[in-house]
């Protein structure tokens, strides 16, 4: 841990969270709101109405230049050069051994310009890796993380809420925006118009948006969203429910499901690795070898048949013998039964396989199920 992360960093919205009575937690070196009141109530609000998240701890790295697409094809495992302007892509940045440095979303903002969004705890590592890999390419890599805030509105009422702050002439930009797309939209906050980058992305399994905002406008955007969302059931939502929401949606969390020691193929992210793309990319030969060899263990969903939840690092058993380990787990607020993600020996990964999770010495029955646990109705 370096000196910067050892001291707890605060987002531009920290005082707003204090005013709202948040309890805080350390996440990736940042003091972030864990919850404002009940994390279960916040979870249900995102599923039924809407929640407002401060995600300003996430990183923002701009990649600009004539070779931006070509460079990202080399630096990341996906084929970013094929992403259309205005669209986004989920990808991974791997090291030479094929280990995952981070999972991230890249937005193509122009033919020669991408916004790359790493996780909070990996933002510096990703920026350093991208800067290192940029040598020899005609690109500039700029770390805008410290100057950029990020607010997310997630839940079925998200569109209605955003429309309160967007001029009628731009309403269609919001309503017609496709999932994993982004555009500049004018927000009227504190009575003044401000152009912000709006993306239809999220980490909750619900419809929703993420809004990139310069720090100086973060508080006025946050308060305007809360005010506009009041009539639409919008509540501030913390990282506790963000974790339970993403788990229900079967989405991996870096540090739990993903790490330098994990192969993308084991994590079910094989389709994200574009081995067919032309040219060299960092990790290619290791990833090719991993794919050729095949996975010994795979990430699966586990549904608890009892009431007790499995937790990170709890052993997964078959007939008393350890065959895997839980990476994330908790009672699912939406589904009403425990859910978990776990790495399990490949022979036990078929849906319907009966396994046990060792809950502090007591085996509790779980069943392998297909992911995601929860999928929203359309």
């Amino acid at each position: 841990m370096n000196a910067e992360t050892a001291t707890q960093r605060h987002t531009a919205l920290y005082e707003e969270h204090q005013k709202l009575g948040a309890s805080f937690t350390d996440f990736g070196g940042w003091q972030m709101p864990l919850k404002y009141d009940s994390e279960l109530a916040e979870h249900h609000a995102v599923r039924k109405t809407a929640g407002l998240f401060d995600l300003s701890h996430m990183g923002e790295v701009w990649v600009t230049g004539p070779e931006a697409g070509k460079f990202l094809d080399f630096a990341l495992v996906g084929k970013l050069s094929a992403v259309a302007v205005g669209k986004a892509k989920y990808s991974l940045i791997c090291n030479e051994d094929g280990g995952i440095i981070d999972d991230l979303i890249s937005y193509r903002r122009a033919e020669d310009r991408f916004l790359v969004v790493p996780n909070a705890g990996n933002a510096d590592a990703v920026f350093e890796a991208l800067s290192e890999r940029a040598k020899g390419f005609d690109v500039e890599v700029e770390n805008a993380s410290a100057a950029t805030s990020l607010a997310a509105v997630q839940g079925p009422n998200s569109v209605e809420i955003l429309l309160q702050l967007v001029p009628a002439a731009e309403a269609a930009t919001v309503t017609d925006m496709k999932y994993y797309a982004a555009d500049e939209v004018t927000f009227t906050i504190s009575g003044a118009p401000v152009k912000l980058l709006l993306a239809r992305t999220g980490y909750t399994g619900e419809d929703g948006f993420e809004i990139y905002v310069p720090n100086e406008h973060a508080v006025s955007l946050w308060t305007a969203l809360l005010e506009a969302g009041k009539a639409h059931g919008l509540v501030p939502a913390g990282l506790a429910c963000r974790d339970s929401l993403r788990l229900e949606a079967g989405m991996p969390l870096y540090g739990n499901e993903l790490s330098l020691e994990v192969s993308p193929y084991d994590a079910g992210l094989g389709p994200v690795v574009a081995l067919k793309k032309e040219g060299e990319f960092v990790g290619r030969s290791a990833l090719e070898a991993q794919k050729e060899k095949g996975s010994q263990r795979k990430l699966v969903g586990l549904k608890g048949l009892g009431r007790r939840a499995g937790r990170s690092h709890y052993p997964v058993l078959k007939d008393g013998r350890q065959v895997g380990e839980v990476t994330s787990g908790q009672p699912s607020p939406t589904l009403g039964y425990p859910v978990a993600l776990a790495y399990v020996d490949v022979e036990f990964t078929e849906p319907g396989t009966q396994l046990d999770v060792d809950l502090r010495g007591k085996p509790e029955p779980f069943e392998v199920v297909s992911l995601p646990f929860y999928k929203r109705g359309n």
Partner: protein
Amino acid sequence: MSKVLSGLRYSAEHEWVDDASPAKIGISQVAADALGDVVYVDLPEVGAAVTAGETCGEVESTKSVSDLYAPVTGTVVEVNQAAIDDPALLNSDPYGEGWLFTVEVSEEGPLLSAEDYASSNGGEVA
């Protein structure tokens, strides 16, 4: 700030005990707030012997599992089935509807006054 109910006594492990006989036991609001939304409680059986300072059950929230420690030694007389059925009572009313079990006390463990517990655990006596 979490409420520490005056008139009760508290263990360092965040259980409260009242002065009735048998004594009623629950967890403090300081503990309930720190745990987050409680989704499961595992309590000792009626008739079970519990020993002050030793684990006698578990409290599971959305985020974590914590051991429940007996604040007194004795025999369990009654368990609160309502709290087992609706563990959210531990959050909404930890000193009332969210009580856990009662014990015929043979010996007390080290217990703190509400004031002492609040000053070392960051609650507000009310």
